[in-house]
């Protein structure tokens, strides 16, 4: 069946898919723009570099967690073990530092918690084929349990290692370390996802696991790496948070359940997997933090703030989310 190549209908398909690709990039940016304008209107102080520094630092925490969450969501799964991964790694590492005085042991123990969580997640999802929603939620519960037993509900240690303190609240050339780290990590992730074989395999897995398997790729390897990265990233954020806040406390990771997921979704990555990328999450993290700060600056009760935040996120998603083509 040979038809002429210059078929107008086919050119339209190309234009349509180019338009879609453009929308996918522009939407989060448009959202960011409008949120920023709203912030400026509410409180002109948001336009200062000081405010921006704080926003970006907070966004960095979300964005770094978002690296793992984006990868996980891209393969069609989700990581709900993040909250207590953050808390446990923070508590364990500062405790280890307090007991041994060794910064390397401190960092290694945080890493081990993160990698351990990641491995546990990967095993449940890849080997036992358990829905990641329920599995990672259970892992989260276990991490919470371990934390409780570990600390026996006593107040956690206050000995924050100087390096951690520096990374969390210090800066280089006036730019806070978290922002620098985030920027570098973001570039690496975006390039990795978009231009390497493994990045392709992630998109393939999120699109069609069976086809990925039947193309000669081992899906298990992909699951493992993705969950390990997510675990390690969250553990690292636990360290940064410790340095930022100057202490650890039970439940310090609980805010990082919904918010990074919202950042990922607002950034255009579909929860069913296979579509999207980290650039969107990067922008989404800033949007989400900005929104939270705007609401904080307006005097309202905690409950009302939560309601407004949730409603605005819902509206943003309803109106602006990139819908997968039917």
């Amino acid at each position, binding site marked *: *069946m040979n038809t002429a190549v210059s078929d107008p*209908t086919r050119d339209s398909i*190309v234009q349509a*898919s180019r338009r879609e690709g453009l929308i996918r990039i522009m939407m989060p940016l448009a959202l960011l723009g409008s949120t920023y304008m709203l912030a400026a209107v509410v409180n002109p102080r948001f336009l200062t570099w000081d405010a921006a520094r704080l926003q970006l630092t907070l966004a960095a925490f979300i964005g770094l967690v978002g690296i793992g969450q984006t990868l996980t969501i891209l393969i069609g799964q989700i990581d709900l073990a993040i909250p207590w991964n953050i808390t446990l790694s923070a508590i364990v590492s500062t405790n280890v530092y307090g007991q041994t005085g060794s910064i390397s042991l401190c960092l290694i123990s945080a890493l081990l918690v993160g990698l351990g969580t990641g491995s546990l997640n990967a095993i449940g999802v890849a080997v036992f084929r358990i829905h990641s929603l329920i599995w990672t939620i259970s892992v989260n519960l276990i991490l919470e349990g371990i934390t409780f037993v570990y600390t026996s509900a006593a107040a956690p240690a206050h000995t924050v290692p100087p390096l951690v303190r520096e990374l969390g609240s210090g800066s280089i050339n006036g730019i806070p370390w978290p922002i620098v780290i985030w920027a570098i990590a973001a570039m690496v992730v975006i390039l990795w996802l978009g*231009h390497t074989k493994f990045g*392709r395999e992630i998109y393939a897995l999120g*699109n*069609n696991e069976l086809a990925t398997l039947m193309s000669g*790729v081992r899906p298990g390897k992909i699951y493992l790496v993705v969950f390990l990265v997510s675990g390690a990233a969250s553990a690292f954020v636990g360290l940064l948070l410790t340095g930022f806040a100057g202490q650890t406390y039970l439940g310090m990771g609980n805010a990082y359940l919904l918010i990074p997921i919202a950042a990922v979704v607002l950034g255009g990555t579909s929860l069913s997997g296979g*579509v999207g990328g980290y650039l969107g999450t990067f922008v989404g993290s800033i949007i989400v933090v900005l929104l939270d700060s705007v609401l904080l600056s307006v005097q309202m009760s905690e409950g009302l703030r939560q309601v407004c935040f949730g409603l605005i996120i819902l509206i943003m998603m309803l109106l602006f989310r990139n819908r997968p083509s039917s």
Partner: protein
Amino acid sequence: METALHDVTVLVAVINVSKSFRATRALKHVDLEGRPGEVHALLGANGAGKSTLVRILSGALSPDEGQLYLHGRPVHFASPNHAGQLGVAAVFQELSLFPKLTVAQNILIGHEPKTRIGWIDERKCNDRAQEVLGRLGAVHVSPIARVEDLSLAEKQLVEIAKALSHDPSVILFDEPTSALGPNETQHVFQIINQLKASGKSVFFISHRMEEIRQVADRVTVLRDGVVVGRLDAAEFEREKVERLMLGEKLVSFSSPVHKQASNRRPSIGASPILEIEDLSFRPAFHEISFKLFPGEVLGIAGLEGQGQVQLLHALFGLYRRGLTGVIRVAGVAFHPSSPRDAVKQGLAFVPEDRKTQGLFLRLPVLFNLSFAILDQLKRFAGWISTHAERKLVKGYVDRLRILMASDRVAVENLSGGNQQKVLIGKWIARDPKVMMFCDPCRGVDIGAKDQVHHEIRELAAQGKGILIFSTELEELVGVADRVIVLFEGRITGELAGEQINPANLLRLFFGESSGHGIRT
């Protein structure tokens, strides 16, 4: 066509109907009518607009322009259920059943009989379902069985029963036999004849010529969304219809004359590229042994479900455990326990279900074509050179004549035939030693089919070993050098060269040497 409205013999009609999807115009000013007690066939290549027309007729889609008429009066179907209430029901090619519900629940979904309190009356449901199934002669299907436990043929019967339960006067069959074997296909034809005899207006969509000839009273041919021909059964002539379907310029490769003339492989290698000894995977197949030589196309044939697909799956490493026997590729023994093993040994597999097993539908053609050879495209630090990728991909697109707007378009936008070519191209790029095909031309239109067969012969000519399982006898006759037939998981016979013809094949299909009737 305006006279159709006033013609009392017309039951249902669409007049001047057009439909576009985003950038594609699927139907352009199409007229169609159906009479009671008649089977009206719709013929056309993939993408010609047949399925769109059926969906409009059955209420799943609304036309952009044009009007539907039922019993001479204009109607508008708000939904498939509405169409069902008005007496129009469709049987889809891709079944619309619910696996975890029972047969009765499926058949009566949406119009279950209720008790006085408003709850569903399960017993009446089961009885009604039993009755409809009985009308179809499907008494062996139990109303309380779960659909997921049924065989494909039984599921098809349930799908038909579901349509019939609305007691429709118009029934549309959208490629109902594509997944069925010869026995079940005949059964479906019997049902269609019954429906015709009871005065229903039946529409039958297919791209299989032989079936149309068996069953249709009238034929309408579509091409590129336009009606290009209307014929009565008497006027039905294979070449005339093919020309209508494909346009004047294309010469069909599938005519018998052309097949003889096509290039047979110049030489077949001496030592086997693939050797199988006593390969078993219970209960699917037992003690299979054969040799495949480079340059040879070996067909695997038989009735559906005799272990052929499982055999190919086993060779490709799709079984993690339970496979016994010896497999040697180019003399090297290997035991595949994952597709990765098989691919590393030089095997490639084009599976039977490209949409769920082979392609990444929402990703671009470029991505799909290069996915198996990413290692070759790596540069410094694992970076993939897009330039090299596009060059490579273009090579295969040209060679296979894949028709698409651009390599960046998602594969789901391509027609079935072009999708299949993308899948094949992906594997050719890897330069495997052995290529295995599972019903490569299922759901593929004639033009693409010829291209695929041509490519298979080309690959063989390059010295690869080809295994091909097909349910279409013609395909095997046209493409294979040797054919082995499986029955109940064992090889019942082997045919070579001139011996490969439908009659001999069918004899072996049933595991006996006496003839059993020929399906043409």
